[in-house]
């Protein structure tokens, strides 16, 4: 029975192969096939308008039945000082604790009854409050968002209660060693500058931030020119603009004493921070050099370079057939549990690095091969590496935008970083323009013979001395 099925199957297969028609062979026979290039060009355009007070509105109409709408603000831990570091994070906690019009219960009921999700995040340079809801509930969503942002109750009682929640969260984040490691990396790489501040803030501030601090924070940073109302899904741009005019026209655009907070450049210090604890089972280590800012033309070659190094997890099944050389080594020599190449870019600087998790006997080897991978990028990267990386990068860029929320987030961040949404077609063109020589030059500019910042948490006795790691940032053979 099985044999006859196989025979029939193979005959059909051979017949199809002979026919050589892609349509016949594709799984979606009968539907029109669209090429990658066509789909890029056919993507809906992101429309951008600005209100009189400077607030920008951007949206992409994707035709989904749901939508994500939110406010992206150019405000984060980088704008905080030592004294109020953690205010943004605290504020995020306070955001959903009730407004002047709705108590916490009422607010929650409003949101739940729509079947919506209301959430927020704070990062070093951006803060976002957004809601995922049905497309038809857009007006209500915008109304609630404007309330949450502009007329937050900030009651003393809630503030006191949230203190312990924030402290508890500070305690819990210690368990997420990736966050600890990367926070420490920022703290040492940008030491003495606002970028070194962690988003969460020190526990001392969590205990002492007052209502006045939070109010001052809102007053100095939540200004219309620094905000973007972004939406993606089944929304029309005109409707959104109307709603924005209705709810957000009142957002202030003037600063007190004309004290416009200007971001000064942040000095990068090649340095290291070692948090050794031999009781932990795994070591989490990150090494980074100063990278490119978000708007720099070097971003795309660096993204391609990172795709060449790629990422790896011990659960990957590729083994010695993984495309990234470092991943192959990691798999064959059991060098690590996971690694990823990352590039965090901010408005005028960035961190380009590799983060890996390994056990205490393979730290030296893993660090050696990671830096070796960097050196290869600077010197011997080949056409085939680039071709593979470009494809992987394009695939990941497209794959990341798989829902209204990622798209909305993309819109919000792009408008804040670049002033416009960079469409996939443009990314595609810029990625295609990358050549091996360009990658080598750009990587040499950022990586070769530069002092790295290293942060390490866990049983890190085997981590080489800083001078050894610094010496591995160049090759004598070149």
């Amino acid at each position, binding site marked *: 029975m099985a044999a006859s099925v196989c025979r029939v199957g193979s005959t059909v297969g051979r017949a199809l192969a002979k026919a050589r028609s892609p349509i016949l062979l594709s799984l979606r026979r009968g539907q029109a096939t669209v090429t990658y290039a066509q789909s890029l060009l056919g993507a809906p355009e992101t429309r951008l308008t600005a209100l009189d007070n400077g607030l920008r509105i951007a949206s992409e109409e994707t035709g989904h039945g749901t939508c994500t709408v939110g406010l992206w603000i150019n405000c984060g831990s980088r704008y905080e000082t030592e004294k109020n570091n*953690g205010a943004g994070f605290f504020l995020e906690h306070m955001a959903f604790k009730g407004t002047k019009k709705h108590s916490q219960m009422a607010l929650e009921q409003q949101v739940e009854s729509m079947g919506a999700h209301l959430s927020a995040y704070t990062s070093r340079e951006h803060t976002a409050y957004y809601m995922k809801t049905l497309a038809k509930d857009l007006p209500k969503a915008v109304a609630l968002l404007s309330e949450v942002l502009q007329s937050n109750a900030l009651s003393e009682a809630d503030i006191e209660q949230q203190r312990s929640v924030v*402290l508890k969260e*500070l*305690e*819990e*984040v*210690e*368990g*997420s*060693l990736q966050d*600890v490691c990367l*926070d*420490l990396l920022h*703290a*040492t790489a940008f*030491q*003495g*500058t606002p970028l*070194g501040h*962690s988003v*969460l*803030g*020190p*526990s*001392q501030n969590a205990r002492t931030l007052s209502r006045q601090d939070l109010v001052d924070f809102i007053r100095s940073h939540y200004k219309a020119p620094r905000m973007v109302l972004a939406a993606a899904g089944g929304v029309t741009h005109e409707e959104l603009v109307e709603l924005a005019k209705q709810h957000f026209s009142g957002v202030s655009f003037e600063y007190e004493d004309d004290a416009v907070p200007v971001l*000064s*450049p*942040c*000095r*990068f*210090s090649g*340095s290291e*921070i070692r*948090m050794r*604890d031999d*009781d*932990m*089972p795994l070591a989490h280590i990150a090494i980074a050099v*100063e990278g490119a800012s978000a708007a720099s033309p070097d971003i795309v070659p660096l993204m391609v370079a990172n795709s060449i190094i790629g990422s790896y997890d011990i659960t990957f099944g590729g083994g010695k057939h993984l495309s990234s050389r470092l991943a192959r080594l990691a798999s064959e020599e059991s060098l690590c549990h996971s690694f990823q190449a990352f590039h965090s870019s901010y408005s*005028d*600087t960035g961190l380009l690095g590799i983060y890996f998790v390994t056990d205490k006997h393979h730290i030296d080897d893993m660090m050696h091969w990671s830096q070796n991978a960097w050196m290869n990028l600077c010197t011997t990267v080949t056409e085939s590496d680039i071709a593979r990386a470009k494809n992987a990068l394009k695939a990941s860029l497209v794959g990341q935008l798989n829902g209204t929320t990622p798209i909305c987030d993309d819109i919000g961040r792009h408008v804040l970083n670049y002033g416009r949404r960079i469409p996939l077609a443009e990314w595609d063109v810029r990625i295609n323009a990358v050549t091996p020589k360009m990658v080598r030059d750009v990587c040499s500019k950022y990586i070769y*013979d*530069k002092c790295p910042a290293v942060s390490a948490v*866990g049983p890190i006795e085997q981590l080489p001395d800083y001078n050894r790691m610094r010496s591995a940032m160049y090759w004598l053979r070149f």
Partner: protein
Amino acid sequence: MLSLAARSGALSPYLQATNVAVNGSLKALLPGAVKGDSLLKSSSQKAPAISACVSAPGGIRMAHTDIKVPDFSDYRRPELLDPKKSSQESSESRKTFSYLVTGATAVVGVYTAKTVATQFISSMSASADVLAMSKIEVKLGEIPEGKNMTFKWRGKPLFIRHRTEKEIATEEAVDMAMLRDPQHDKDRVANPKWIIVIGVCTHLGCVPIANAGDYGGYYCPCHGSHYDASGRIRKGPAPLNLEVPYYEFTDDDTVVVG
């Protein structure tokens, strides 16, 4: 445990350190404990400890965000003191300076090492007294005309003969064709008045006798080699003329041989 530490005074840091270590091993015993590996998890069982301990010297740290990176301004180069200035601009000049200093030090170091090594190795070469033995200084005023004096030099006899005018003329007139080892007298002396040769017969190494033989020079008694006043072999079994060593006249009266 903490109160015990407080009462113990001087021992308290050690006791507190023990406190922390004990927490580390105890946490495995606590049921349902903790996904993270943080010390905090076990300490969270004792709530008062958290609020009391943050700034205490032996206390348990609350969060990684409390870690303050120290201010390293005392150690920074001047271009990097300002945290508001990007470090990229000065990066070239800083690296160049470091590499130049390192390079110069390396070059100086190599030469120093070479000097030290040479000094140690050359200490194994001939010492001063041995070197001194290799030269001999002779006062020529003490040798009367027509006389030959013998000196011990480098373990061999050295003949210095103060030649008369007649001897000089005779030797210079000798025909090359008659010599077994043809050498003109001019080629064997720097100053014709003095003939300096090593007194070892070129036949089998005996010491010739001065003012003997048929040619007015030296005669080797062992096998009958006759040398003339220029030390050239004239008759007998010796194949070569007497060897002329390196010498120089430091002044008219003194010669240094060797």
